[in-house]
């Protein structure tokens, strides 16, 4: 009987249900939100609309919005983790604080994973889904179905990483990368590490599919006339980011697979005994790790180049060297990963080689900063809130870059490795570059996505709160690093007089939370006053690239007629030639209506658009079931999940007619109605 029960339930037992204070709290809040959401939807009978219009949509604009919403939800979860860490560390001088060591270690592990995998990559995939087809003059990504599948796999990974609240009770307490012997069965027999492994596998596969999708779109679906050297810089850096994804994420998939084989089949890749080589895990996981941090950072560089060029009302300075800088960062990021384990003892030759190549990356980053400053030089810089985020970014990026190169020399790294100095460095890079970048991108493209601009005044308040909060919370960490404080400490001796600095850092966190509340308030106010800030011309910032040539939000098919591109800033050239008599360049940008380029009737052609498909959801659901079953060793459920995924894939491979035709007449009629709306 015992093994029958084991066969049916695997490792799942009754005490996996929530019984700790935080699991009960989390499960209750998740259920509550679910019920409230369901009641609203059933009351307003919007289930059908939600399913047909959004969930099964293959329109990149809708999938982009869903990515942004998903990333925002995950951001709050990561933020709560960060808050609990700060409060625990501020309290824990000579006392164990309000969290046990194990619980504290689970929190910083999930904080790391959620922020890296689901928030930062989620926001950038959202922005890319929205903006890349528009900027390269395409109607859709190369594989619409794969786009929806990639998104839903990331969501499946996101749900699995949060599922331990409801079923299981404990997450991995190993650190965000589950280092080898600690995450093996010998030291971590629980189910937490399996949750981490399989949520990384699912969302890793989702990111890989999205990476392939974007690469093929950027290379094969550009508008006629747009050669590689005429692409906007955001498209260039996103292409570099996607190249990094398709070459780094397979290493992550393989390494987490090996760790899982160690835990599930009892193999000995990284175990302490039986010939296992625990150092190989560090080598492989960081071989993915470093390209991953450049995946987070590169799209932000391209985004800033767009913003600086638009708000300085000038061509980006040194376009070619910006492209060369982005490509050299991409290439160099494969040769540096050992700087994450200088202290392991690989010897002076190996350490100094990797240290010097790490320093080389500072050169292209430096060039990008110089070129941004040169773009502002002799420009007419309008300080809208994206430019505020840009100034905050450059201030923090130079600090982060300096501390990065500081740690590139191995002997210096021997002293600050795994200390709070390192924590401050990578938070400066991720918060300063990627997070400020995503706020700048969202504020800059918000009118294009929603049709009305965000409130500028509140945006600038939010920026100041974020910047001050950032410095108040992370400068003390640099100092704590010099005082010898190592990372991940759940309590410390008061004699080391670290507590005052920990408390200042906690205050900094509170200021950041006020900044986030200000951003939510800004969103509410902007939605309430959207009539006042309507963006009727589709070009609120006097933009330069193609996405501003459509109305905002753009029609379902993006461009009625695919534009031909002649120069680097196609929309700016159109305005110069008076084809689209927008505002004269160089003038400050008061809102002024201007007539669209009139396309005659016969120029409209039939447009092929992808149909909605629910297959992405079904495959991700089966993959989620497989992941859950494998985590809990329920073999029959795992086979169902696997077989279901394979059957769905076979079905979709036989589905030949995935596109419908939008007749030219309907396109012309739609364009006419838009024009009348703009003129009206």
């Amino acid at each position, binding site marked *: 009987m015992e093994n029958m029960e084991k066969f049916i339930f695997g490792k799942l037992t009754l005490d996996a249900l929530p019984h700790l204070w935080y699991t009960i709290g989390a499960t209750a809040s998740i259920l509550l939100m679910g019920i409230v959401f369901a009641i609203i939807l059933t009351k307003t009978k919007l289930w059908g609309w939600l399913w047909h219009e959004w969930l099964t949509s293959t329109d990149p604009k809708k999938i982009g919005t869903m990515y942004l919403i998903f990333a925002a939800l995950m951001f709050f979860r990561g933020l709560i983790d960060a808050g609990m860490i700060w409060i625990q560390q501020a309290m824990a001088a000579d006392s164990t604080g309000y969290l046990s060591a194990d619980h504290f270690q689970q929190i910083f592990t999930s904080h790391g994973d959620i922020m890296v995998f689901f928030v930062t990559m989620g926001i950038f995939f959202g922005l890319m889904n929205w903006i890349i087809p528009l900027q390269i003059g395409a109607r859709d990504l*190369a*594989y619409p179905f*794969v786009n929806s599948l990639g998104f839903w796999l990331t969501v499946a990974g996101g749900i699995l990483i949060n599922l331990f609240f409801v079923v299981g009770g404990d997450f991995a307490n190993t650190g965000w990368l589950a280092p080898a012997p600690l995450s093996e069965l010998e030291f971590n027999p629980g189910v937490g590490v399996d949750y981490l492994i399989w949520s990384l596998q699912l969302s890793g596969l989702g990111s*890989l599919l999205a990476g*392939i*999708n974007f*690469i*093929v779109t950027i*290379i*094969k*679906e550009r508008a006629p006339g747009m050669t590689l050297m005429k692409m906007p810089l955001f498209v260039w850096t996103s292409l570099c980011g996607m190249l990094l994804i*398709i*070459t780094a*994420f*397979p*290493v992550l*998939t*393989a*390494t987490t697979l*090996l760790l899982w*084989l*160690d835990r599930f*089949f*009892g*193999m*000995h*890749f990284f*175990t302490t*005994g*039986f*010939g*296992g*080589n625990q150092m*190989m895990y560090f080598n*492989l996981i960081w071989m993915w790790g470093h390209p991953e941090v450049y995946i987070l950072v590169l799209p932000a560089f391209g985004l800033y180049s767009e913003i600086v060029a638009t708000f300085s009302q000038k061509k980006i300075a040194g376009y070619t060297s910006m492209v060369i800088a982005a490509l050299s960062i991409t290439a160099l990021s494969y040769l540096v990963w050992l700087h994450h384990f200088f202290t392991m003892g690989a010897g002076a030759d190996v350490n100094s080689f990797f240290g010097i190549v790490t320093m080389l990356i500072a050169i292209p980053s430096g060039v990008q900063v110089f070129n941004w400053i040169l773009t502002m030089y002799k420009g007419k810089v309008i300080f809208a809130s994206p430019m505020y985020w840009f100034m905050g970014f450059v201030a923090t990026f130079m600090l982060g870059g300096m501390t990065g190169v500081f740690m590139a020399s191995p002997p210096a790294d021997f002293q600050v490795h795994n200390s709070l100095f390192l924590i401050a460095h990578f938070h400066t890079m991720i918060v300063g570059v990627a997070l400020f970048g995503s706020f700048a991108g969202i504020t800059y493209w918000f009118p294009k996505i929603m049709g009305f601009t965000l409130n500028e005044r509140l945006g600038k308040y939010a920026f100041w709160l974020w910047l001050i909060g950032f410095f108040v919370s992370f400068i003390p960490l640099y100092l704590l690093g010099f005082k010898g404080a190592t990372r991940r400490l759940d309590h410390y001796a008061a004699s080391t007089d670290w507590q005052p600095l920990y408390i200042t850092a906690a205050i900094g966190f509170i200021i950041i939370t006020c900044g986030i509340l200000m951003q939510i308030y800004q969103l509410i106010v902007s939605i309430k006053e959207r009539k006042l800030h309507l963006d009727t011309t589709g070009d609120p910032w006097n933009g330069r690239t193609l996405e501003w040539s459509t109305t905002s939000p753009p029609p379902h098919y993006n461009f009625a007629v695919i534009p031909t591109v002649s120069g680097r800033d196609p929309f700016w050239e159109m305005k110069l030639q008076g084809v689209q008599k927008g505002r004269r360049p160089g003038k400050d940008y008061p809102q002024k209506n201007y007539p669209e380029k009139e396309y005659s009737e016969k120029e409209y052609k039939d447009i*092929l658009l992808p149909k909605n498909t629910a297959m992405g959801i079904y495959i991700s659901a089966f993959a989620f079931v497989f992941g859950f079953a494998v985590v809990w060793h329920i073999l029959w459920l795992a086979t169902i999940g696997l077989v279901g995924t*394979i059957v769905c894939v*076979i079905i979709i*491979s*036989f589905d*030949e007619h995935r596109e419908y035709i939008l007749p030219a007449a309907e396109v012309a009629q739609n364009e006419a109605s838009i024009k009348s709306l703009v003129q009206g």
Partner: protein
Amino acid sequence: MEENIKVEDDIKVFGFWIYLMTDLIIFAVLFACFIVLRNSTFGGPSGHELFRMSSVLIETLALLTSSFTCSLAMFEIQQKRKNMATFWFAVTFALGMVFLFIEFSEFSELMDKGANWQRSAFLSAFFTLVGTHGLHISVGLLWIIIAIFRVWLRPLSAFNVCNIFRLVLFWHFLDLVWIFIFTVVYGTGHLL
């Protein structure tokens, strides 16, 4: 519309090539693991004692011929000759099964000798590398069966021909990986 389909196929094949590159990188990681762990046998049997080169040769030649017959099948599909294409696909399927059978019997023989994957890191790396390739082969075989159904149940439209073309690419790719498994795993294993 004709030109549009040609572009459509190009994009699908290009995307599939990039997927093959990511799969190649997964195999590269497994190779790196195998080479690093080649000597950590933890007192257990080493490659030299375990591998019987005769069955490995038969496996390799079977996979090589199946790769060739697969390209013949594609050649027949392009000629629109359905039954010849099905014949060659059946031969490819048979050779693939021979390959899997030999590999499976080698694994079970190792298990009987007690050299299973829990015995040492070297054996873990060996079983994972050759096992993952074996898994890819079984996915390929399943795809061949579906391709045969596709040839008979669906018209040979550009969409279906492109799907079969990607199957042939996948099968050739598996043979490419097996060349290095044959040389690095079995070759150096037997020699050192």
